[in-house]
C-alpha cells in the first residue's frame, strides 16, 4: 500500500460523503414509511456509527500509520485482499443499481449494460490517476452536487404539509428497524476510512466526524423534504433525490432530469474510481490491478443486474454489515489495542 501523506481531512471527508450519497442516489425506496420513523432511524444509525468509528479514529489520531500492517505484519497482503474483494463487490453492487436506475428512468437513451461498462472503464482510469487526483475531483463533484441539491430544494414547487410529519407511533417500529438496518449496512465508509486515512496528512477526527455530520444533515434534510413535500409520490418514482428534482423547475431549467443524470454519472464514475483505487492500491502494479478489478466488478454488477439481485436483499445486507464490522471495526480495534500495548511497553 502506498502510504505517502497526500490528502487533507476535508478531501477525505468529501470522498466518504460522495460514496454515501451515491448509495442514496441509486437507492430505490421499496416500501412506504412515515418520515418520523426514517428520520429517527437515521439519527440512531449515525449515533451507532459515531461509536463504531472510535477505534479507527483513535488509531490514526494516536499516530498509527496503517492498521492492516499493524495487525497482520507479513500477512498483510492477505488482509488487504479482503478489503479489495469487499470493495470489488460494493463496486459491482453500485454498478448494478446504477444500471437499474438507467433502465427505469432513461430507458430510451443508452443500454444500461453499455453505460455500466463505460462507467467502469472511466472509473478504472480515475483509479490509475491516484489518490490526489481522486481527492481533488471529489471537491469539484461535491460542489456540483451541493449546488444541484440546494437548487432543487429551493425551487421545488411543492407546498409544505407539516401534517405528513406525524409523530412516531409503535406501528412505525417495523419501518424504523428496517431503515436503521439499511442505514447501518451502508456504513462501509468505516473500512474505506481505514484504507484511505493512510494517506491523510492530519485530522482523522475531522474527516470521520465531519463526514458523519455532513451525511446526517444532508440525509435528514432530504428525508424532511421527501416527507413534507413529496410524501407518498416517492414510492411511485422510487428514487428520493430524483423525485425531488422531478417536482422542481425554474424559468430557465424546465426539467432537472438531465442535470441529475449528468452529475450522478460523474459521481458514480468518481466513487467507482475510489473503490477501484482501494481494490488495487495494495498491489505492486496498481494500474493493471485496477483494470482487473474493474472487469471483475463490472461482471459481478452485470450478473447482479440481469438477475435482479438487490443491495437490500438479506444476504447482501448481511455481507455489507459483516464487512463493516470486520474491516471497519474489529480490525482497527485490534490495531488500536496493539498500538496501545506497544506504547505502554516502550514506556
Amino acid at each position, binding site marked *: 500500500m502506498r502510504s505517502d501523506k497526500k490528502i487533507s481531512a476535508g478531501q477525505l471527508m468529501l470522498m466518504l460523503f460522495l460514496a454515501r450519497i451515491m448509495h442514496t442516489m441509486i437507492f430505490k425506496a421499496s416500501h412506504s414509511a412515515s418520515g418520523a420513523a426514517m428520520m429517527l432511524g437515521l439519527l440512531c444509525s449515525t449515533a451507532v456509527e459515531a461509536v463504531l468509528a472510535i477505534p479507527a479514529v483513535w488509531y490514526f489520531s494516536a499516530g498509527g500509520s496503517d492498521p492492516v500492517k499493524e495487525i497482520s505484519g507479513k500477512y498483510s497482503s492477505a488482509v488487504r485482499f479482503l478489503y479489495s474483494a469487499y470493495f470489488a463487490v460494493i463496486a459491482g453492487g453500485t454498478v448494478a443499481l446504477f444500471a437499474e436506475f438507467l433502465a427505469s428512468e432513461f430507458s430510451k437513451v443508452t443500454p444500461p449494460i453499455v453505460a455500466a461498462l463505460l462507467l467502469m472503464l472511466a472509473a478504472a482510469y480515475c483509479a490509475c490517476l491516484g489518490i490526489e487526483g481522486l481527492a481533488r475531483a471529489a471537491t469539484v463533484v461535491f460542489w456540483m452536487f451541493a449546488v444541484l441539491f440546494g437548487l432543487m430544494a429551493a425551487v421545488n414547487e411543492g407546498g409544505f404539509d407539516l401534517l405528513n410529519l*406525524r409523530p412516531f*407511533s409503535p*406501528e412505525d417500529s417495523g419501518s424504523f428497524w428496517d431503515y436503521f438496518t439499511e442505514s447501518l449496512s451502508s456504513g462501509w465508509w468505516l473500512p474505506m476510512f481505514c484504507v484511505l486515512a493512510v494517506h491523510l496528512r492530519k485530522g482523522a477526527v475531522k474527516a470521520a466526524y465531519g463526514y458523519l455530520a455532513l451525511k446526517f444533515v444532508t440525509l435528514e434534510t432530504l428525508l424532511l423534504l421527501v416527507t413534507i413535500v413529496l*410524501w407518498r409520490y416517492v414510492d411511485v418514482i422510487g428514487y428520493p433525490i430524483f423525485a425531488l428534482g422531478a417536482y422542481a423547475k425554474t424559468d430557465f431549467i*424546465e426539467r432537472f432530469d438531465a442535470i441529475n443524470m449528468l452529475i450522478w454519472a460523474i459521481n458514480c464514475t468518481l466513487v467507482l474510481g475510489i473503490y477501484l483505487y482501494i481494490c488495487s492500491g495494495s498491489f505492486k502494479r496498481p494500474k493493471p490491478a485496477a483494470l482487473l478489478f474493474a472487469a471483475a466488478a463490472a461482471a459481478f454488477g452485470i450478473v447482479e443486474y440481469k438477475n435482479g439481485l438487490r443491495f437490500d436483499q438479506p444476504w447482501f445486507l448481511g455481507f455489507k454489515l459483516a464487512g463493516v464490522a470486520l474491516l471497519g471495526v474489529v480490525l482497527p480495534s485490534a490495531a488500536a489495542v496493539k498500538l496501545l500495548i506497544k506504547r505502554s511497553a516502550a514506556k
Partner: protein
Amino acid sequence: MKKLTILLFAFAAMLLCGCEAGEVQRRIVVHALGIDPLGDGYEVSYQVFSGGTSSEQGGPVDASESTVVTLLAQGRTLYETEESLRLRTGKEVFMGDVELIVISDELKDADLTEFLRYFRIADIYLGVNVVYCRGSAGDLIGQKLNQGSATALLLKGVVETAIDRDRACSSRIIEISNTFSDGGSAAVIPVLSLEKEGGKSEDSTVTDVTLGVFESLLITKDGFAGEIGEDAAMGIRLLRGDASEMSLEVEAGEGIAAVELKNLKIKRKISIDGGAPLLKVAIEGIYDVRSAQEGVSEDEISDAAEKQLLYLCAQGFEALKSSGKDFIGLGKLLEKYEQGYALRQNGDFGGAIEGLWASVEAKLKKY
C-alpha cells in the same frame, strides 16, 4: 499518450452534442391533453405547435397562437392513443412540455389512478394540473374564445388564477396521487367550463363564450363522489388551511362592498369531544376595501367579511359531511392530535366525518 487522451476527450465531447438540428422536428411537442370517452376507449386531443418554416430549417419553433393545432387519436388505452398518433405522424410524441390535462366529465367515474399512472410513464411534469370539463374536452381545447384561441397557456392561466385566488383547489398530478395514497381521501378537482354570454352582437369578430372555473368534482380512487360549487370549494380551502388570499363581495349594512383578503393565517386543531371529533379552525388575516357603496362603514365591512368566511366554511363543511369523504386532511389531523382515536379508525375516516363537529373563528384587520 497526451495526444491520444486529447483525441479521446474531443471524441467524447462530440457525442455530447445531443440533438442534431433537425431532431426537434422529428418530435411532436404536446402542450395540452384533452381526454374524451369513445366507446370502450378514449379519444385524446393533443394540442401541439405545428412548427413553422424557420423551425423546419432548424431555427426556433414558432410558438405563436397561429401555429397551434389539435391532433386527435383514438385507442382503448391512453398509451394506445399515443402510439396511434406516433404511427400516423411518424414522429416521437414528447409529453414533457404538457401544461394542462383536461378530462371530460363523462369520464368522472373512470379510474383516475390509471390515468395518473400513464401520466407518470409518459413523463408529464408532476406539477401539471388535471381538470375536468363539461362536455367534450377536445372541443374545449380547440375552442375560439373572447380571449383568443384556447391555447394550453391560456387554459392553464384560467385554472391557475382560480387556484391562486382560492376559488378552486389545486389538482396537480402529485397532489391527486398523494391524496389517493392516503386511504379514504378524495381529491377536489376543478371543472373548467365554457359559459355562453347572452346578448352579444352577431358581429363575426366577437365570440360569445368565456372560460372559467365555477365548480369542482369530488373524485376518490373508486370514482365520482359528488360535485360542489365555488363557495364550497373556497370553504374547503379554508378548512384545509391552505387559503392565502381571496376576493369577496359582501353585503355590509345597507350596501355592497368588494374586499380583498390577504395574508390569511389558518390554524387547525382537532380534539375528541364527547366521543366525536371536534375540528377547531381559527382564521386571521387582513382586508383591503376595493370598493364600497356610500354609507357603508368600516365596521360593517369587517363584520360582513368575517361572516362571509364563516359562511364559506359552512358550505365546505356541508360538502364534507354530505360526501363522507376526507378531502380536508382530517385523517392526518387526527393522527397528529388524537393518535389513539385515529388508530381505532383503521384508516377509514368515514365514521369520523359522520360524527364531526366544527367550530370556526374568523378575525380580520384593516390593511
